[in-house]
């Protein structure tokens, strides 16, 4: 990375929905909208915690998770996930993804502690994106956990009527 630094003129934040935002370096404390530059500031105080100040309004921000170049950010109560890429890593990523293909497995985990009410798939079941696979009861609500992908169920570790902890693996799907 250190060697790359000297040449980096731009960074890209790629959203999970594949929108690309580019920022020139050094990173400015302004963002241009139309012909005007608006100041953007990251601040914090006792009363509000961390926030971004933009056009005279405070927006609450939090970093929910981060690893390497991947960031999940809560901005005004909405979560966004970005991977930040340099021009080089972006190029490398494109080459790699064309060679290696995409992710092959999707792991459905318990988003919160609770009780498994029903398991709606079996090993070998085919599922489509958005199809409920497990029903988890927590906080007086029954929550349907949906498959984020189309694929085939290769492993089911969730059992009806058992309690699970947050992030316990429930179902594994092969794309």
């Amino acid at each position, binding site marked *: 990375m250190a060697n790359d630094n000297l040449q980096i003129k731009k960074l890209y*934040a790629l959203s999970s929905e594949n929108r690309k935002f580019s920022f020139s370096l050094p990173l400015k404390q302004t963002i241009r909208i139309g012909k005007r530059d608006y100041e953007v500031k990251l601040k914090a105080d006792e009363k509000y915690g*961390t926030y971004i100040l933009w056009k005279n309004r405070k927006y*609450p921000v939090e970093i*929910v998770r981060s690893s390497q170049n991947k960031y999940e950010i809560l901005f*005004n109560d*909405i979560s966004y996930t970005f991977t930040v890429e340099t021009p080089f890593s972006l190029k490398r990523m494109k080459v790699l993804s064309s060679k290696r293909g995409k992710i092959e497995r999707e792991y459905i985990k318990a988003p*919160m502690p609770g009780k498994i009410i029903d398991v709606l798939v079996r090993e070998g079941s085919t599922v489509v994106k958005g199809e409920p696979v497990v029903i988890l009861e927590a*906080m007086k609500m029954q*929550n349907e956990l949906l498959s984020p992908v189309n694929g085939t169920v290769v492993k089911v570790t969730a059992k009806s009527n058992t309690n699970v902890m947050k992030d316990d693996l429930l179902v594994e799907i092969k794309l």
Partner: protein
Amino acid sequence: MMKIKRILIANRGEIAVRIMKTAHLMKIETVAVKTSVEPNAMYLASADVIFDNTDDISEIPVFLDIEKLIAIALKTKANAIHPGYGFLAENAYFAQKCIENKLIFIGPSPDAIYKMGNKTIARRIALGIGIPMALGSEGNIANEEEAAVIAEKIGYPVIIKAASGGGGRGMRIVRKPDEMEKMFIIASKEAEKAFNDPSVFVEKYIENPKHIEFQILGDTKGNVIHLGERECSIQRKHQKLLEEAPSSALDDELRQKMGNMAVQIAKAVDYYSAGTVEFLLDSEKNFYFMEMNTRIQVEHPVTEIITGLDLIEQQIRIANGEELKFRQNDIKLEGWAIECRINAEDVQAGFAPDPGKIESLHMPTDSCVRVDTGVQVGSSIVANYDSMIAKLIVTGKDRKDALKNCKMALDKVWIKGTKTTLPFFRMLVRHQKFQDGSFTTAFIEKDLERYYFNSEYEEMLAAWLATKLFIEENLNDDSINVNFEHGKEMSPWLLNKRINQF
């Protein structure tokens, strides 16, 4: 004379705070129960007496333990019990036990709770006095074959409902005959688990209705009046998210007609205390009796605002044996009120609960805003109970004005520590169908592409922040000249405690 001297609050959270607030105004003492789940809960601070139940190791929450609550009331010398909503609020046996122990139950009679709590009995009573209802089974049904026969007769789609149900559990819509077996079993199983009673019945399913409910007040002298309606069509999984009063779907004539029906139902069970009669209203303005809730409702504040009455005070006075001081003609509905239930839920994950600790909390203080809450900074939204953080209740002179104020108020709410339903409400107040009043109970499922609102630049600002973090973490070479200002501008890494690794 006020016989009620000291009330045991058999509840927690915002409703415990709400009841104690009125009790204090009436100079009545209150007892709150401290539990090991929430030993520092905000509601404890409002009580005159705290009963410490933290050494109770029972798996059943104390708020569901009839014997224990009665014992606590007797021990703390309370002479009345307010059940709030949820827990034992609609348990006839609990009300009966209070009476047997010479404790005043602040609610209706055990008989009224029992009759209205059992949906098949309630149906029979309503049918008997000519209240319009959706076609359905006479009573409970034994099995899926019987359900299929009835569904064939009244026509699909039908809805299977738990006889002892409420809150959307034990309820399933069946659109085609071949779904009946599966749905019947699911509904019945769910009913048994939730209400200890697997019995279900079948009703014609009204497509895309509005949920309209009437607030009832009755005293022990036989006076029953209604306080107008609330519209609660904004629901997901049959759970209400936003309520308003009055409803834009009713004119005075329909209001009077439905209100009279609601009063008749209440009178049929000699109802006293506060109660709610729920109806479905179809697109042709036909209405159908759904059920009666024999307790104070979560959404009672919107009615308080348009009537100027304190419903908890009325409940206490009625339980004290007082006669209502007003009649139907005295009730004037003024202005408009909207209640948003700000819950710890992840809107982007289909409203999944998101328990956590409240790290910062600011609510608007404008005169058009009322906030009912049971949490403060440092409180935890625990997985044992519901996900409510606060009720944001906004007033206006008419619906348009209330909506405008609501939009403003939503932008002033600041909550950190859990995800909330705020982005949903910010979307809702901007949605055409919500603004023009044409929304139905199917709104969330059918009319929405996205459950949340973000302004044009919010995602870009989040991207800017991600980039800033990346630079700070990876590119500290002088050559790219990244300089962060000192002083109040902070490095986000130092500030966030919630960082997890992917």
